[in-house]
């Protein structure tokens, strides 16, 4: 009989997978995916945005499987996304056509169309609501009925698209130069890896897929002292925009021939920053510039932060890490950063052995230990 390999690894993995299932189920209660979809809108929106996959039901499933860990849920959806063939690209989405559920401006008190608070926690008091401990489906149904009675009808999902943009007003007033439409065919960072200097479409894509916390922190660094003045929320919109694809057999020229395939909920932030513009005869004047943020779902902090980072990256002063394209865009992806962190848990004994060899060589006074001189080994292994 010959020697055989020790099959420790296979068994250890199997048992570890059982453990993880045990942890998820040990209290004898499992989550219903429809309940996650109904009650965890915030987490679902965050995960759809970071995964860049718009599907509430799959996001809910990922949350269940990941036991609520956002990084793990995003990981699951991204891996699933890799298996989906890219059949169509949508036509450009126009946020002017948004059915607005919420819309605010910090720049003007009276914006045409008015401020629409919509659903927001901004003015809620963060006091734990202990009544929710025992809330039932029946309680919810009763409340909904009363709410509909109050309104005279069930609230509609957003207003018809007729709201003027704050941006338009500024342009009308001559306070902002109307940016020219950039109709360059956008790059797709999931189909061709990002190149540097990055195109605007590459930048915006990486930012919108970024990990919420990272995008927020880096934008915070911008407004706290790494490169820019205090931005203002020109306009923040939450609502639904229609998505259309061209007739696969048509020429793709005529919007009339396109198919409406549904709508997606997005948050759009148009951030205003004042900037100096050169005048004739060497003078300068102030004008407004824009930073743009757009995310899947209701992700207001992230959309605002994205707008700040977009503007910051356009400045490109490499003294500030927050204006350095590679620094920002290479490091904000959840799957990449968490993956590389977790890889540190993998065994590295080959590389470590190699390093140990180098270290020993530099200690010219210390010879390689004989089999019994192991103090140094112990020291290095600590």
């Amino acid at each position, binding site marked *: 009989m010959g020697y055989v390999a020790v099959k420790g690894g296979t068994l250890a993995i199997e048992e570890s997978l059982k453990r993880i299932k045990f942890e998820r189920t040990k209290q004898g209660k499992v989550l219903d995916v429809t309940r996650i979809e109904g009650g965890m809108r915030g987490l679902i929106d965050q995960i759809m945005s970071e995964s860049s996959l718009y599907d509430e039901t799959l996001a809910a499933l990922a949350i269940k499987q990941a036991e609520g860990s956002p990084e793990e849920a995003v990981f699951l959806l991204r891996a699933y996304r890799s*298996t989906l063939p890219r059949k169509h690209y949508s036509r450009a989405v126009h946020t002017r056509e948004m059915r607005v559920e919420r819309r605010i401006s910090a720049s003007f008190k009276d914006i045409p169309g008015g401020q629409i608070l919509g659903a927001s926690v901004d003015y809620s008091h963060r006091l734990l609501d202990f009544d929710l401990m025992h809330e039932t489906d029946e309680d919810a149904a009763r409340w909904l009925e009363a709410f509909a009675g109050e309104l005279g009808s069930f609230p509609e999902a957003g207003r018809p698209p007729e709201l003027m943009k704050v941006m338009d007003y500024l342009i009308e007033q001559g306070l902002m130069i109307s940016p020219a439409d950039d109709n360059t065919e956008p790059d797709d960072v999931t189909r*061709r890896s990002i190149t540097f200097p990055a195109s605007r479409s590459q930048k915006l894509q990486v930012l919108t897929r970024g990990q919420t916390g990272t995008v927020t922190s880096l934008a915070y660094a911008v407004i706290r002292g790494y490169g820019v003045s205090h931005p203002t929320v020109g306009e923040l919109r939450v609502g639904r925009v229609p998505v259309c694809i061209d007739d696969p057999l048509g020429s793709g020229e005529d919007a009339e021939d396109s198919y409406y395939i549904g709508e997606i909920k997005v948050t759009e932030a148009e951030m205003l920053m004042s900037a100096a513009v050169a005048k004739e005869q060497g003078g300068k004047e102030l004008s407004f510039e824009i930073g743009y943020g757009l995310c899947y779902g209701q992700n207001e902090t992230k959309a605002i932060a994205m707008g700040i980072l977009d503007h910051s990256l356009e400045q490109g002063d490499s003294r500030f890490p927050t204006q350095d394209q590679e620094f920002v865009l290479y490091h904000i992806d959840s799957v990449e950063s968490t993956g590389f962190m977790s890889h540190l848990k*993998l065994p590295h004994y080959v*590389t470590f052995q190699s390093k140990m060899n180098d270290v020993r060589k530099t200690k010219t006074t210390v010879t390689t230990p004989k089999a019994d001189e192991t103090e140094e080994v112990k020291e290095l292994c600590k």
Partner: protein
Amino acid sequence: MQINYNFAFFDESSKREIRRATLKAIAVPGYQVPFASREMPIARGWGTGGLQLTLSLVGLDDIVKVIDQGSDESVNAVSIKKLVQNTTDIRTTDETAKATLIQSRHRVPEIPLRAGQILVLQVPMPEPLRMYEPREAETKKLHAEKEYSGAWLMLFEQIMNYGSMTTGADHPVMVHDRYVMAPSPIPKFDNAKLNSSEALILLGAGREKKIYAVPPYTKVVSLDFEDYPFETESFEDRSCRLCGSTGVFMDELYDDASGTAYFQCNDTSYCLERMNEQSWREGAESR
């Protein structure tokens, strides 16, 4: 809802795209070809680059071997092997000679690879110049201009500071007199195996989205100086406690009970084969 994944996980157009990048890499030895790296069911940093190469290349007749740190049975090797098997149903093996495609992290097997085999190495940091130049846009230029003085300077500074080159694993190599390349963190001991290899060697970096290659019979030289020649890790006077091998890369292990260090082949399948050979020989002799 039941999802049935395609053969080898990816959709066919994704596989084609990865193979196209691979062909380009083979055509330009040592050059890092960017590719649209996909997110995989295993974590970034755990071999997604290697896995994408493997999955884009395997066919029904392939026999796959996966090793991590020299071991077929390391948990990550097992996990990758399981994923390949679950999505392809092809055969796997521990025996280096039997495999048509070998995915490895941090090692080149001890048994010399032969023509027709493909070695896929997992790469965490594909850019050999990253140590002194953090910007991708800059390193791309340096490679284009074959401007490698920084790489030499880095080694020179190590010699000045420590008296020897202290690159650890991943000692940079010059490929075909053109590109400086990170051989992935294989120990210096394995660098020589890349030179004029009979097998095709592919290197995949998933997170960094790069594929590069050392095609068969390519000249690969470890960077060094005339007066400070390249030296591999030394296991002088050491032999494997299990099979008695010398001249192989070894793990240094620590025996708690006796308080002594001992050595063992890092390539577990090589060690096992040696032990079996010996036991058969002994068996034949005693008969």
